[in-house]
């Protein structure tokens, strides 16, 4: 079938399902009707979309960690600890990197080695290998909603198993889980594979079971200008909504400048709602996700706490619906459960201290919002144009043309021509625009902002400046000033 942003018909979907479920033996465990019944019996406090909608209405920010280990009992212990000691409001199940690339055989080896070594040799929970029953034992052991978080270009089987397994939220998207997470996967394939996931979720929705879908906002996590990630998020939301998804969380990865970050999150929600309405998906509920700094962290734990806290503070002031929490071990390796809980506790202390505070509206904030919206609209409209009105096709062609372009992405389908750098106040701007379809006034705005910095540092903007920015936070700064 040709890539097209159109709700899949049931026959096609059914055929595709049969194939998907055969990819690994555990696929046979999926029984959709039974799964619908299982979900309907879940208590309301375990349903992701319900908890998100309530938080959004109350204007508070929920805290969610990342976590996953190879074996079931250990994974449950870990999540329970994060819930009971860490105080997580929402829980994850992070999938290991072999499963993410559908290398279930290697994941199986990882499971066996983990048993042999007595410690997790996988960087996540191989849900497909463990199967539906194991997933349910995870969900049943916990009191709060649990989401699958991964990075899988082709997540058809993963979605089948984990949704049948009782998880009520699923992260990813055909762009956001391809460009930063793969090298050679064509967008036509990943977008289509994610239409499958979205259709599956749409099917659950049509049968009265609400599953939250979250495009992965931060992309490569490294100096991604807000309009790029917002455009990708909104495109994925539209694609998901077409397949019947109704509860969508849009994410954004902290850049570090307070005003820019708040503007980005505000733009994201407002503009997503505008587009959803324009394309007739006005009934879907949009909530927001703020990711604490996703780039390189400082190794020192006390410095990491500073980075975590600043992310928490920004999330609270931006009134994000939830914040994804980093840990003091971030720069080193997968955190222990204690370090993971510590990150949540630091975050929650700040969220609670700031929950009754808002950052008042200002001219600067409005200006940032305006620019981000203008840029985002330019990116989305261009994709629509390239797709001759079809956004699925348009997204693929936009990446081909480089009118959508993600910095530092491993994927070959990404042009990789843009170059971001911080301005003098740490906001992420563009030094090279590649083929981004921006009006001259926007380009001038970026140029001027970076020139200001160049001037104050007495150097011409260059790749060295970008490298300095990449290292900056891990070296205790935001703007990568030249070394003396």
């Amino acid at each position: 079938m040709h890539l097209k942003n159109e709700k899949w018909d049931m026959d096609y979907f059914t055929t595709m399902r049969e194939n998907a479920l055969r990819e690994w033996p555990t696929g046979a465990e999926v029984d959709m009707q039974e799964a619908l019944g299982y979900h309907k019996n879940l208590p309301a406090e375990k349903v992701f979309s319900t908890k998100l909608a309530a938080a959004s209405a109350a204007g508070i920010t929920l805290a969610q960690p990342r976590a996953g280990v190879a074996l079931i009992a250990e994974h449950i212990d870990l999540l329970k600890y994060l819930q009971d000691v860490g105080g997580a409001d929402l829980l994850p199940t992070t999938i290991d990197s072999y499963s993410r690339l559908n290398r279930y055989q290697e994941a199986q080896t990882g499971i066996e080695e983990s048993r042999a070594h007595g410690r997790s040799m996988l960087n996540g929970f191989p849900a497909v290998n463990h199967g539906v029953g194991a997933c349910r034992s995870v969900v049943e052991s916990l009191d709060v909603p649990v989401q699958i978080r991964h990075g899988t270009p082709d997540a058809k089987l993963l979605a089948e198993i984990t949704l049948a397994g009782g998880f009520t939220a699923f992260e990813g998207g055909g762009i956001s889980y391809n460009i930063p997470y793969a090298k050679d996967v064509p967008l036509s394939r990943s977008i289509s594979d994610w239409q499958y996931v979205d259709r599956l979720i749409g099917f659950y929705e049509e049968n009265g079971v609400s599953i939250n879908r979250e495009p992965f906002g931060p992309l490569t996590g490294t100096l991604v200008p807000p309009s790029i990630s917002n455009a990708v998020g909104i495109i994925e939301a539209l694609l998901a909504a077409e397949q019947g998804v109704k509860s969508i969380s849009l994410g954004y990865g902290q850049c570090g400048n307070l005003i820019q970050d708040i503007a980005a999150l505000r733009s994201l929600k407002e503009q997503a709602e505008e587009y959803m309405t324009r394309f007739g998906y006005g009934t879907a509920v949009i909530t927001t996700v703020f990711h604490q700094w996703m780039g390189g962290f400082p190794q020192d734990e006390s410095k990491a706490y500073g980075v975590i806290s600043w992310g928490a503070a920004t999330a609270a002031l931006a009134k994000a619906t939830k914040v994804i929490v980093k840990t003091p071990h971030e720069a080193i390796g997968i955190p222990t459960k204690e370090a993971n809980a510590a990150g949540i506790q630091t975050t929650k202390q700040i969220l609670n201290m700031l929950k009754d505070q808002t950052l008042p509206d200002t001219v600067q904030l409005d200006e940032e919002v305006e620019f981000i919206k203008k840029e985002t609209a330019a990116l989305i409209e261009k994709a629509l144009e390239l797709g001759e009105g079809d956004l699925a096709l348009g997204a693929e062609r936009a990446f081909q043309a480089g009118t959508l372009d993600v910095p530092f992405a491993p994927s070959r389908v990404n042009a990789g021509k843009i170059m971001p750098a911080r301005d003098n106040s740490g906001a992420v701007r563009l030094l090279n625009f590649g083929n981004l379809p921006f009006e001259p006034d926007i380009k001038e705005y970026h140029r001027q902002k970076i020139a200001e910095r160049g001037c104050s540092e007495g150097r011409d903007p260059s790749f060295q400046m970008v490298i300095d920015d990449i290292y900056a936070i891990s070296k205790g700064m935001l703007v990568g000033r030249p070394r003396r």
Partner: protein
Amino acid sequence: MEQQPTVVLGVIGADVHAVGNRILAYALEQAGFKVVNIGVLASQEEFINGAIETGALAILVSSLYGHGEMDCRGLREKAVEAGIGSILMYVGGNLVIGKREWDEVESVYQQMGFDRVYPPGTLLDEVIPQLRIDLGLVENGG
């Protein structure tokens, strides 16, 4: 410098962390190396073939995502089989799952046949001079 020394660079296994790889490539080129960058998601075979095809003097392996222990095992043996058994091999990144004693991590990788093992946060200012020494390039190094 008459001929540029060649090195093969890549991120092994199912690992997609691209940022450090990009910077390593840039820094090595700046330092006068010819860099054959096989990028992320690189298999052991790609490292070995890359080295043979380009006559590289060293293989520089990155592993960030935690599966390094499983992914790197056997690389030295493959090199031996392919007839480049004595090629210089470095490995660096977040080499194991979680926070473990560095001595332990280093020795795991040394036993796999890596000549040097670098912890996360390694500064390239240290690595490149070392590479020059290990390759016997110190006199004509740029």
